[in-house]
Each structure stands twice: as C-alpha cells, then as structure tokens.
C-alpha cells in the first residue's frame, strides 16, 4: 500500500490551493480527481469575479483556474486524474479506482475538497431530455462550445441562474424567461440587471408547472405562486422553449465525508447537510479536513481562502511551518474570508458559517464530557435579516451637463472593489470593508471610462450630456458578438430591455487590457441619457457555426 503525506480529493479551487500551500512548504501532496483535467468547475466560469483587487477581483474564473493549476504544478503537487475515491477506511486509508484499477493509499492527512452538486426540482416533465442543470448547460457551452438549446427557460434567479442566463445569451441562445419562486431576485442585482437590459424577463413568484414535449422539451407551463408558495390556478402561461435549465441551488458533495465518519449538521443557508469543522477546517475525524463547497456552499473565492486555511493548518501540523507564523497567516486568511462574507448574499453565508463553527465546538466539548449551554444549538436554519438597500448616488444634473462623468449603478453590498483601483483620478472610493458601496467624487471624474471594463458587475456607465445641443453620449460595456462598428445605427434599450429609441455608435474600444469587455460609445437624444443602458444590433448576423 502506497503511503502519502497528504491526500487531497478534488482538484478544484479549494483542493488546488490546499495542495499548493502545503507543497510550497515542503509537504508531499497527491491530489485525486475523477475528471480528466484539473480546475473543477472554475474552467466554465467565464465572467469576471468580484473580490478585492489585491486578490482575484475582475479576473475571469477560467483564468483563475489556469493560475491555480500552474501554482500547484510549480509547487510540485502530484495529481492523478480519472481517480475516483470509492471509500475512506480506518487510519485514513483511501480506496481509489485510478484509470480503472483499484488501489489503496494510506495518508497522514486527508483533505476532502469535493465541491458541490446541483439540486434538482421535480415537476411533470422534469426528466425529459432538454431539462438539465444550469451547470450542465454551462459545461456544454463554455467547455465544449456547444449550444445547449436555442430557447431557454431558466428556473431560479440566484447568482447561478443569472450568470448562466447571461452566458447563454453570450453563446447565442435566447433566454425566454427566468422564473423565481420567491418574490424577489435571489442573486445580486447587478447580475440581474445584465440580463434584464437585454430584455430577459424575470418572473418573480413564478415557477415551472410542467415541461412538455414528445421525447424532448417543446415547451413549459409557468404558474404564479401566492405568498405561501402555493400555485394560483388560472395563472398558467405557456412558453415555447427547447431547454429548461434548473438553477435551484447546490448541495455539498459530501458522500466521502459521510463515509469517513465525520459529524454533520443541517444548515439551510449552506446547502443542507454540512460536515462540522473548526476554524482550521478540521472535521470531527482526526486528520481529515474539508475545504470549499463541501464545507458549505459559498463561491470560488472563499473556497480558495478556505483551502488556504486548511493548507496552512496542515503544513503547521506536519511541522513545515512554525506555529506562530501559521497563526499569523491563518488570521490574515480569516480576515479575507470575513471580507468576502458580507453584504446581502455573503452575509448569510458568513452567519451560517459561524453557526457551523459553534456546532463543531459544541460537539467537541460534549465529546470531552464538558457541560455545554444549549445556546449553541447544532442546527441553525434561519436567514440573516435583509440589509436595507443603500441608495446609489448619481452625479447631479449640473455635473452631467459639464462633461463626461461615471454613473455607478451598484446598489448592493458586494465584496468587490476593482473600480476603485481602476480609477487613475482617485474619483472612486470603496475603502473598508470592501462591501461598501462605491462612492464617486464627481468633481474628480474625467469620464475616461477605465472603470467600465473593470467592474465585474458591468454596472458602470459614462454619461456626457455636454456632447451637443440635443444629444448625449453614453459609454457602456458590451460583451456580445458581433460587435457594432463606428457609424452604425443601433437600437437603444433601457434597463428592462425595452426599445426606447435609436443610438449612433461613435466609438468601439476593445484593447487587450479590457479583457473582452468592449466599451461602446453611443450618441442618443439627450433626454435618454439616464435611460439607455444597452444596445441591440438591428439585424443580428447569424452566428457562425462549425
């Protein structure tokens, strides 16, 4: 039986980071991954990530994946692909089917970084070919360049539903509707705005009643829900779609963690049953750690930070790192994690994660026979109260009349600050914590537009109402094909994707530094300067196919 110092299951963002942290300090790490390539689900994330500009912000997910893979390789991490871990036994023995052959490994430490799987939603017709997970659609188009369908219904308006809808539009599909059972959009408003202004309707308090078709999806019936979530008879509407994507949440892929004998608790905001772990990501089984989505659904940036925490802890534990330094590094990493877990979405995860740590502490104390006050009840299913929506500041009419100025339509506390760094004039201030709303010092802004492609939420526009007697110019981000060209007349759309007039394309900026977020400058009639937020080409060319 082969012995390894550290075995990591899963080569996604958490697993790769754990491995690099340990290997960089001299530890020997073997990653086991069932796929043919490393990177987990990061390679299909084509959008720019939120976050701190000191870290990964405004990098696109697949590029983050590339650099994590490179780091692990440079650190000397060994990776087995097509390696399915089928069991974890006493003394940290792993059963692995590697390229079809069963092997046994014995590890000093095991890190389970197995990620998550998509939840399903059952309704008549949900098994028809054409109904699939949103992540499945994302893999098909972003990894394989194959369009999942031409007309899509997206079920669920969390960040996955919104982002995948946007990516389906980028790939050339038409998203006919997004339905959301709750009375409000689940994900960030900036992600919702990106698809709304293209004209995708988001039906709130709606769900899919059934999908129908003869051996494949030909349409779906939507139905409205009352305040208790019950369908209201008579509100059905039929839409013609060939694909239904389910984006109704994720669950930790925790089978191996169960098999290893780790203790669990149920926390709704973390995706369901989650393994108890402490601040160093250690589970209740000695020598077994978790990191990333398996330890509670979050997002890739916090998976990376959790991987770092586990990596530092294990490196110290194995003697590759002095304890004092490890404590310092862990403290830093926890601060980064805390910064990511603020605001309306991250804040919920942060609160749920604290409940999980409490549950772990309670369990350990009980095991040790100590009295524990009932305060730290193991199961916590509540949601954090919603933060009041902060108002965005819009440059005054006087300022807009003076010349070009940025309008930042970012109204939610998102852990994100690249706009601040992008501005050479010092006109945008985010500060600490990075969930603060960006504040524009309009008198300093010269309307250069560098903040437009830097904003991962594509929520910044530059308005110039001094352009001419009756026209204003708008600079906006446009991540679609084909690109318009100078002199073209295009349709001007508002925030809801409604046609409000015509626009003339004055300029198309697309330097490499913009990282595939071209900025289009258009002229519109002056009264539309604060209305127009997107353009549509009059006769979209047929996309070329292979």
């Amino acid at each position, binding site marked *: 039986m082969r012995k390894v110092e550290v075995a990591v299951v899963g080569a996604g963002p958490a697993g790769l980071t754990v491995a690099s942290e340990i290997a960089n300090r001299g530890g020997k790490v073997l990653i086991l991954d069932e796929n043919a390539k490393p990177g987990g689900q990061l390679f299909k994330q084509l959008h720019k990530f939120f976050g701190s500009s000191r870290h990964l912000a405004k990098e696109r997910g697949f590029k983050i994946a590339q650099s994590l893979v490179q780091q692990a390789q440079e650190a000397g991490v060994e990776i087995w692909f097509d390696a399915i871990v089928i069991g974890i036994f006493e003394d940290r023995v792993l059963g692995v089917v590697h390229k079809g052959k069963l092997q046994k490994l014995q590890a000093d430490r095991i890190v389970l970084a197995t990620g998550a799987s998509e939840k399903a939603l059952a309704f008549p017709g949900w098994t028809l070919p054409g109904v699939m997970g949103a992540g499945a659609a994302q893999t098909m188009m972003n990894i394989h360049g194959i369009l999942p369908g031409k007309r899509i219904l997206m079920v669920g308006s969390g960040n996955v539903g919104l982002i995948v809808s946007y990516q389906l539009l980028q790939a050339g599909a038409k998203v006919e509707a997004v339905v959301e059972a709750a009375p409000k959009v689940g994900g960030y408003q900036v992600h919702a705005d990106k698809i709304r202004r293209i004209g995708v309707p988001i039906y709130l308090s709606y769900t899919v009643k059934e999908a129908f078709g003869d051996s494949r999806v030909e349409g779906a019936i939507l139905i409205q829900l009352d305040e208790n979530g019950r369908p209201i008879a008579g509100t059905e509407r039929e839409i013609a779609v060939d694909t239904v994507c389910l984006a109704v949440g994720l669950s930790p892929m925790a089978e191996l963690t169960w098999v290893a004998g780790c203790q669990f608790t149920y926390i709704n905001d973390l995706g369901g049953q989650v393994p108890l772990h402490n601040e160093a990501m250690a589970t209740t089984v000695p020598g077994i750690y978790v990191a990333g989505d398996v330890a509670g659904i979050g997002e890739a940036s916090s998976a990376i930070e959790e991987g770092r925490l586990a990596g530092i802890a294990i490196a110290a534990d194995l003697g590759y790192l002095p304890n004092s330094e490890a404590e310092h590094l862990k403290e830093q990493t926890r601060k980064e994690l805390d910064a990511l877990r603020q605001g309306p979405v991250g804040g919920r995860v942060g609160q749920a994660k604290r409940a999980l740590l409490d549950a772990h502490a309670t369990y350990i104390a009980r095991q040790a026979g100590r009295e524990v006050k009932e305060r730290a009840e193991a199961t916590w299913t509540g949601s954090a109260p919603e933060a009041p929506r902060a108002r965005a500041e819009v440059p005054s009419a006087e300022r807009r009349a003076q010349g070009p100025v940025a309008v930042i339509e970012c109204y939610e506390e998102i852990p994100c600050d690249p706009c601040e760094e992008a501005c050479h004039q010092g006109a945008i201030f985010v500060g600490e914590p990075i969930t603060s709303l960006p504040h524009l010092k309009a008198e300093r802004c010269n309307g250069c537009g560098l903040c437009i492609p830097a904003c991962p939420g594509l929520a910044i526009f530059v308005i110039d109402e001094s352009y001419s007697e009756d026209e204003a110019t708008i600079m906006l981000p446009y991540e*679609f094909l084909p690109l318009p060209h100078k002199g073209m007349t295009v349709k001007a759309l508002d925030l809801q994707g409604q046609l409000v007039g015509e626009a003339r394309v004055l300029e198309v900026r697309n330097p490499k530094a913009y990282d*595939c977020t071209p900025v289009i400058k258009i002229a519109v009639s002056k009264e539309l300067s604060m209305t127009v937020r997107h353009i549509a080409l009059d006769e979209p060319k047929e*996309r*070329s196919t292979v």
Partner: protein
Amino acid sequence: MRFAEHPILGTFPRGRKVTVLVDGQEVEAFEGEMIAFALHADGIKTLHWTAKRNEPRGIFCAIGHCTDCMMIVDGVPNVRACITPVREGMRIETQHGRGEWRKQNEKS
C-alpha cells in the same frame, strides 16, 4: 449546434475531427468532446430509455452523477456519456433499460 466564435473565448478551440458510430449511423465529433455533448450538437438528445417505464432520458447533471446519460459504448453498457470522451471509431448505442454487454463483433 457548435459555435465558432465566442465573445470571451474567441475562436473556440477544437480537437481533431473524429467519426463515431451512433446506433450504426456515422456522426462527426471533435476529440476532447464528451459523448453526450457531441451527440447533442448533432441533435441527438435521447441517450437512454428507462427500464420500467421506457421513458427517454438525456443530459441532466453532466458531472457523471445522475446516470441519465448511460449508453452502451464499445459493447459496455451503463457508460456515463457525459464524462466519457469520444474516440475515433467508437461504437455508441442508445441504451434500453439496464443495457446489455455485447461481444466484440456483435452487431447492435
């Protein structure tokens, strides 16, 4: 449908063209593609018919977990088509029910 250009990924990189046999019909695919996706691009959405009710199943999870995409590949039943890459000359069959093992030269 395979798209050629993407606003973020640019010209989509594809592997070498290969030909696979799907229920006896030649289908073109590209190396690196998973069976289920290559078939989807060709308009084939039903990969498997269920054992009890004979209902069609297609791509659902695309991570090898749900087993909706099980097909008979080179005579081996219950192959997860969403995580198995195509290969030149591969014999792929729509699976009915639990599928059957086939001998090397047996016609489907």
